[in-house]
């Protein structure tokens, strides 16, 4: 036992050394055209050695340490707590959510411009994740090309404004509907496939859209992208310093306040917030409608669902189309926020991140997905100081999540009552 522990501890500390020394201990420096390898200074080496020693000691006395930890009283004795009554929980939940939305409405007036900008991005991801949640979390269709619908929404707005001069508010429904149409068209041939096969075909579709946008230079500008996408207006009021379009007025002049670049950022944030709340409410409605139950039934057991007379194609297509619709929504907002889009924004990594948000948040759970969207978007920004390591931290956080909470941050809760033990 002791010898075994010792061997294991030695092995672990050596692994620690092997992994951390090359990452932390070596630096590549560019000197002119040459790259030189320099070793780290003495203090870093000492830190690495110290880490190895700590790992060694912990592994050696693991049994004792874990033993004392376990004998401590549990900090959150949840197991002995009575579960809250379902209707009370639902009531508290809706109050808290309303409170958060109201706070979010006023919040941008008190923080920096960068924070508001980041928050807008978070809201776009929330919309995307809520939409994908319908497809993956509720209907159980693994879609790896979701970003394609996002791209359709963004490019619809960009192209419409460039060629026809259509404004944001008109492009918003058009972009969403066009994305939904793409979802419908893609869905028809694809939905007879299942699981891995479906994932690969959707992945292919995502790439096709991106490559198409990249190469159709005459229409989309190819890798150069499309710039000069107009900002949204408020009843014909523009947020720029000078009015760009004939017949519009400018916001700051109408209200007689000094021009500030922040107005536009805050306005975009508020639009994104309203749309995100709208997305959440509509999808919540869908979840409680028969079609929502049909999605879940089909995910749980396809044969049983079909034996009850549900049409497999209709149910899957509805999920796909609705998911795509909200991606189109998010795409339009994104195009407007950036003012410039190129195929680079719609690579597979985007799909993967949105999927990660859904999985991290807990499949099918709206609150979970919102929390995960916030975490996944903000964490890399917070970790900007250790910019070299932030992907490392991001990856580690994901792995730890999956180990500790494989069901996601806030797994979907179905209405049910725990049975009292009969004794």
């Amino acid at each position, binding site marked *: 036992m002791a010898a075994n522990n010792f061997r294991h501890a030695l092995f672990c500390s050596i692994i620690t050394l092997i992994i951390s020394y090359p990452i932390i201990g070596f630096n590549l420096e560019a000197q002119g055209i040459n790259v030189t390898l320099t070793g780290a200074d003495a203090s870093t080496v000492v830190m690495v050695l110290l880490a190895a020693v700590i790992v060694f000691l912990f592994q050696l006395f693991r049994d004792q340490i874990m033993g004392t930890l376990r004998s401590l009283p549990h900090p959150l004795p949840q197991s002995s707590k009575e579960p809250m009554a379902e209707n009370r929980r639902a009531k508290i939940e809706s109050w808290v959510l309303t409170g958060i939305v109201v706070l979010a409405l006023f919040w941008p007036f008190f923080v920096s411009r960068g924070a508001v900008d980041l928050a807008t991005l978070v809201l776009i991801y929330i919309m995307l994740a809520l939409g994908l949640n319908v497809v993956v979390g509720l209907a159980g269709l693994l879609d790896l090309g979701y970003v394609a619908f996002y791209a359709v929404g963004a490019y619809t707005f960009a192209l419409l404004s460039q060629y026809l001069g259509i404004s944001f508010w008109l492009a918003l429904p058009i972009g969403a509907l066009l994305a939904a149409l793409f979802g419908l068209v893609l869905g028809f041939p694809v939905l007879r496939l299942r699981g891995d096969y479906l994932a690969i075909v959707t992945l292919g579709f995502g790439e096709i859209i991106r490559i198409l946008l990249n190469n159709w230079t005459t229409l989309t500008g190819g890798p150069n992208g499309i710039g000069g996408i107009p900002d949204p207006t408020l009843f014909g009021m523009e947020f720029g310093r000078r009015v760009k379009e004939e017949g519009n007025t400018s916001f700051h002049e109408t209200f007689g306040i000094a021009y500030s670049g922040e107005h536009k950022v805050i306005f975009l944030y508020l639009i994104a917030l309203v749309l995100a709340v709208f997305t959440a409410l509509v999808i919540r409605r869908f979840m409680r409608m028969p079609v929502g139950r049909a999605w879940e039934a089909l995910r*749980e*057991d396809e044969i049983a669902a*079909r034996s009850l*007379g549900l*049409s497999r194609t209709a149910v899957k297509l509805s999920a796909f189309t609705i998911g795509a619709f909200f991606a189109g929504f998010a795409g339009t907002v994104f195009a407007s926020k950036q003012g410039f889009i190129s195929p680079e924004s719609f690579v597979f990594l985007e799909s993967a991140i949105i999927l990660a948000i859904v999985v991290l948040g807990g499949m099918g759970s709206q609150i979970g997905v919102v929390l995960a969207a916030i975490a996944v978007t903000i964490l890399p920004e917070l970790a900007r100081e250790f910019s070299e390591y932030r992907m490392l931290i991001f990856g580690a956080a994901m792995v730890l999540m999956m180990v500790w909470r494989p069901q996601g941050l806030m797994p979907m809760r179905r209405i049910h009552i725990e049975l009292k033990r009969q004794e």
Partner: protein
Amino acid sequence: MLVLEDVHTHYGKIEALHGVSVEVKKGEIVSLIGANGAGKTTLLMTVCGNPRASAGRIFLEGKEITNESTAQIMRSGISIVPEGRRVFSGLTVEENLHMGGFFNTKAEIRKSQQHVYELFPRLKEREHQRAGTMSGGEQQMLAIGRALMSRPNMIILDEPSLGLAPLIIKQIFEIIGQLREEGITVFLVEQNAHQALNLADRGYVLETGKIRLHDTGKNLLENPDVQNAYLGG
């Protein structure tokens, strides 16, 4: 009520049913027995249109359904309890039942739900429990209850006794007898030949994709060939 005329079914190139003719009359319990791989489940699935019959015709209440879609067939007064129960394990008992009445109005659902709870008081007790956490027998009851929610004229049961304790099997068969009294036609597919034939008005014996024997349930029970092959001598 349900008529199969010389039905052939193929899986790819392999023919699984070689011209099967079966008739189930209104108000009857008809049992179909046969060994593993005889094609019992294939026959049922063909009735549901998945896979489609490659030749022959199927009629439900006088209307031909051979080429209808599965979803359409399952909405025309027929219900199937698929093999291996297949309840929605993540949904509660009540939600499972509501799925069964998917195309009915709310009032109809309430009524048939009440009726199912009368047939299976156990399901009422477990109304808000997740279906996946119940025992096999309870899940089978739920599967039957779910099939009854659409108020079918005819119910098809695929191996309802599969993997259940003898006492539970007895209960399930009692319920099936009760369904006949309510005027629901029952088409029962079973490996448990003794009980299935005992209950049935008529029975068919399916062997390697063909109907071998067809008689009343009682006669089949006494038939020495059937006794040898399916009733353990």
